[in-house]
């Protein structure tokens, strides 16, 4: 039972973390993140880095789709823009790591605004399809702008250096990626305490009413595209430093579906949802690997079942959450929270 949480000022009511319990959880999370690289082996550390990148990107998509209500199936293409920006800067200019990431974010934001331009005229599904079209056109550019992107064989990167230290192993990258993603998530959480973020939510809930309230629709929709693409660009940039090779086939269309699925499963329109969804959707296929491994003595050819089972589970998760838990995992977490808040007075 939660008691004595009466707020005495508006700022305490608006605070991101409102209770001691929340602070305690954040502390535990921070400790876990700090301890993780020392406890995890190579494989789990690799996954930790991948999850970190995906969290950043999913949070970005959540700003656009979850909070502003503009559905995008172009997230993978935006990440590709970021990844290529980093790769080209690293190869041709040799600018430092953090600058490259910011540049990737900025350029992707511009591309995002361009892609978002149809959003004034079309919305809903039509917009989603426009973003699909944009991703295929971007793919065409990556393949055919030979002089810049090196065509189908793509660009290989030298490892990043962070204030003189080369970031070669996942252990190194982890220490850079996690703070960056943490900052991005924090930024997103804070965004929705400002006028801009509130405007996004107003647009999502009813665009015409939002306009009546004095929110210029096109400007805010484009802003949402810009911010979301900025996130995608930085995530793509981190991806480039992580895998160290960028090709047009690095970011297939299915990746866009993956991110949309991640925020649906996690919970659209909540910061927690983007994080939980990305973590969950990245780890489920890997956990299935252990399931298949465990089942292999009993099932013939279990190894060949893994990939189809993953495909089925991926689809089933999307369908299952949309049908039975449209608010996603974040809602489940909220329900658990509420249970403890009211305990023991509600059964």
């Amino acid at each position, binding site marked *: 039972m939660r008691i004595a949480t009466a707020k005495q000022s508006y700022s305490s009511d608006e605070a991101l973390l409102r209770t001691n319990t929340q602070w305690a959880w954040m502390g535990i999370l921070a400790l876990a993140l700090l301890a993780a*690289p020392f406890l995890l082996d190579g494989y789990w550390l690799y996954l930790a880095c*991948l999850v970190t990148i995906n969290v950043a990107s999913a949070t970005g998509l959540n700003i656009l789709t979850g909070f502003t209500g503009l559905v995008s199936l172009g997230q993978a293409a935006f990440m590709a823009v970021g990844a290529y920006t980093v790769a080209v800067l690293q190869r041709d200019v040799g600018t430092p790591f953090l600058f490259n990431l910011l540049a990737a974010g900025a350029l992707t934001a511009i591309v995002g605004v361009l892609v978002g331009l149809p959003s004034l005229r079309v919305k809903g599904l039509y917009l989603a399809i426009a973003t699909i079209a944009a991703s295929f056109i971007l793919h065409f550019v990556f393949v055919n702008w030979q002089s810049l992107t090196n065509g189908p064989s793509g660009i290989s990167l030298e490892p990043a250096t962070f204030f003189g230290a080369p970031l070669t*192993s996942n*252990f190194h990258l982890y220490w850079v990626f996690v703070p960056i993603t943490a900052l991005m998530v924090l930024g997103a959480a804070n965004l929705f305490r400002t006028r801009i973020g509130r405007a996004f939510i107003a647009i999502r809930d009813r665009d015409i009413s939002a306009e009546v309230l004095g929110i210029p629709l096109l400007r805010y929709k484009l802003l949402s595209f810009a911010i979301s693409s900025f996130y995608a660009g930085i995530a793509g940039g981190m991806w480039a430093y992580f895998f160290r090779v960028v*090709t047009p086939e690095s970011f297939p269309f299915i990746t866009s579906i993956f991110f949309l699925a991640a925020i649906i499963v996690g919970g659209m329109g909540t910061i927690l949802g983007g994080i939980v969804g990305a973590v969950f959707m990245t780890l489920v296929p890997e956990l299935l690997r252990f399931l298949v491994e465990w089942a292999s003595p009993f099932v013939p050819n279990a190894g060949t079942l*893994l*990939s189809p089972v993953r495909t089925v589970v991926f689809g089933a998760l999307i369908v299952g959450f949309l049908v039975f838990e449209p608010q996603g995992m974040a809602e489940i977490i909220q329900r658990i929270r509420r249970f403890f808040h009211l305990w023991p007075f509600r059964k």
Partner: protein
Amino acid sequence: MMLNWTRRKILASAAAMTLALGVPAIAQDNQEIVIGGSIPLTGVFGFAGVGIEAGMQDYIKILNEEGGIDGRKVRLSYEDTGYKVDTSVAVFNKLTSQDEIHLYYGDSTGFAKTINPELDRRGTMIMAGASFASELNDPAKFPAQFLAGPDYTEMVSILLEFIAKEKPGATIMLVNSDTEFGRDPIAKTKERASALGLEVVGEIITPPTAVDVSTEVLKLRRARPDYAIFHGYILAPLPEFMNQAKQLGLETKFMGTFWSMDSSIWADVGEAANGFMGVMPYRYYYDTEAAPMLDKIREMRPQYQSTAYTQGFLTAMLLTEAAKRTLAAGQELNAKNLKASLNTIKDFDTGGLIGVPISIPGNSIPVGRIYQYDAAAKQMKPASDWISVQE
């Protein structure tokens, strides 16, 4: 460096905790040599992966029966990748944290390129795989990798050599899929063709999702080339091309590269497949020329085994041969020594899997032979002698 050292130390002390977290940490058995494998048992390349795995397992079995390498048993530790790069990388990370691995089999060009910096960083293993990408055939850029056959450019060069001999001055059409795989040899092919006095009369790029190829066939018909070289496909849309070309009364001869050359994939196509030619670096399961290793394979497996099987078999042979030579020289198993040992392979007898003795001075084995499909026998029949494009 400092960080690395600290991590290792801490990692060691945290081994118990790792176990508690449910992470499998199999005890290191120094007696065993483990070949890791990101193998595509499913996905678009599944047909190959299944064969590759069987081939590798069979060779390892033969090797272990003969006492392994220097008394040490060999084991294949692999997982399915679905032919997706990110999954392959995950598998790589998983396998390498379970076992000490010095030999690796990778499944795609994308994976080979993605994992290359990591291979260089670790410096503990060499890798070969299912990709014959020309880009990988560069010992300076890919020092820890090699190809168990000719690269795609060399494959097409072998085809061109054959054409130049059979019909000097012939006209050629290049048909490639719009993928990294498909576009791989295009530029070099044109150079090579003009050096051999052949004329490339056009190129057709098909989108990777292409189903209907009618317009492409019309292009082919207009150019009326003597040969059409297909690359970047496994089967589709080749049969439809050949069907329509036959209907149009085209005399064009159709050619392909390694991955379209397995006879089982052509068996369902029927009569239209007759006469399809291509380059093959290995002997077929049913080849009648003397080959002790093929005899052994036929004894182990009474049914037809695919070319992917032979590829896996030979790759395992070369990987373990490198390890054998390294250990025989009393050296440590690391990327540098293994690769150096691999490069000492000279006039090596593969037991007849490749028809001529092979040498691996660089990253590839640039030999191959032209085979032609005989629809009645449902077999690929040799159409040339072994051709080497080693420079």
